[in-house]
């Protein structure tokens, strides 16, 4: 019995152990499952987190890539702009240099042309004056001397240098109207008849008519000189009979310069006067034929006038 009982007891114990073991195994399984589940969950979480991390990383890259593209675009544009700007500057500089060179060249040309025009004007006027004189058998030196005297009078009278210079250039034209006077009157030795005198005196009006249409200041000056160089300060001159300062200063100056030179030169109808005789006449005609101020200037600066006379002496003398 004891033996039997002990065997049964032993079996029961084993059975119990087995059951316990089994239960324990079951329980263990459960725990394992739970653990695995948890593990898997954890893994999923991590992987999700990793995935999220990845997508986060991707969007940042995207942003950077967009920035990069923008930067590249902007840089490209900037470089293009700078290159273009440089090109514009370079071209502009080249063009400017070229234009400026051209401009200077043209300016030089214009200066030369302008000088040429002025010189031509002076020459034409001088030649025309000389024609007038040559017809009356006077020399070109008369014209030259009258021109120089006129300038000197103008300067001492107080006219600006430019105007004095212009008067010098215009005064040779004072007798241009003589081209229209017949030779037989112009070159007549001896006194004119009244009729001849009338014709002779028209040369002032004719000279004026010849020149007055011009708009050139030089020719306008010449027309005034031609018109008024036979007017007298006391109003007894011709063609208009102007008096005192009604006569333009150009007319008053040329009148005195012309007479001074004419009296001191030989003419077809007379010999040259002695200086003293000329000076006497001037003193008498101060305020009559001539502007008193100009007579004063003449005597005050006599040396200079005589220097001009000897410098431009007639070759025939």
């Amino acid at each position, binding site marked *: 019995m004891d033996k039997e009982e002990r065997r049964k007891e032993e079996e029961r114990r084993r059975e119990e152990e087995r059951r316990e073991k089994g239960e324990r195994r079951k329980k263990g399984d459960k725990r394992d499952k739970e653990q695995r589940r948890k593990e898997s969950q954890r893994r999923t979480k991590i992987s999700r987190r990793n995935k999220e991390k990845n997508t986060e990383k991707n969007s940042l890259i995207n942003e950077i890539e967009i920035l990069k593209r923008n930067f590249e675009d902007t840089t490209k544009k900037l470089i293009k702009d700078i290159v*273009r*700007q440089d*090109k*514009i*500057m370079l*071209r*502009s500089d080249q*063009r400017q240099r*070229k*234009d400026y060179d051209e401009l200077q060249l043209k300016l030089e040309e214009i200066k030369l042309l302008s000088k040429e025009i002025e010189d031509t004007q002076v020459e034409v006027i001088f030649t025309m004056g000389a024609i007038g004189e040559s017809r009356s058998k006077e020399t070109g030196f008369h014209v030259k001397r009258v021109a120089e005297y006129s300038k000197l009078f103008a300067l001492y009278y107080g006219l600006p240098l430019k105007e004095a210079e212009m008067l010098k250039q215009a005064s040779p034209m004072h007798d241009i109207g003589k081209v229209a006077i017949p030779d037989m009157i112009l070159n007549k030795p001896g006194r004119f008849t009244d009729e001849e005198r009338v014709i002779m005196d028209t040369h002032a009006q004719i000279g004026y008519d010849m020149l007055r249409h011009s708009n050139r200041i030089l020719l306008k000056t010449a027309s005034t000189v031609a018109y008024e160089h036979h007017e007298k300060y006391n109003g007894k001159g011709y063609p208009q009979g102007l008096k005192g300062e009604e006569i333009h200063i150009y007319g008053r100056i040329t009148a005195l310069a012309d007479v001074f030179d004419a009296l001191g030169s030989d003419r077809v109808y007379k010999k040259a006067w002695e200086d003293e005789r000329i000076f006497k006449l001037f003193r008498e005609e101060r305020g009559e034929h001539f502007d008193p101020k100009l007579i004063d200037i003449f005597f005050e600066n006599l040396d200079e006038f005589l220097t001009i006379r000897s410098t431009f002496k007639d070759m025939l003398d």
Partner: protein
Amino acid sequence: MKNLSIEQTKYTPQIDLDASKGEMNFFGKSYPENTFEFYEPVLSWIDKYFRKHAKEETIISLEIIYFNSSSSKLFFDFFDLLEENNDEHKITINWIYDEENESALEAGEDFQDDFENLTFNLKEK
């Protein structure tokens, strides 16, 4: 679309922008006191024209006798604008110059080189 006409002055060109004909004409000198201010309405007109009102063919004539460097910049912007629209629209540019105006010819040649995609003709007057 309303046409845009700007009278010529001593410093600015005559500009006639005609949407109905598809013509844009520039004539004269260009050295405005404020170049960008002067050309702003011109460029915005052209931009609007190409966005909504462009004709099948657009002909642009430029006879610019003289221009300063800021105008040059403006012309670049202008040709850029044309180049942007060149794929969708037929655009012809005629750069007109006087035989004696070497600078104008050279400027035209430069623009021609810079904008190879544009139909850019040099025409002696």
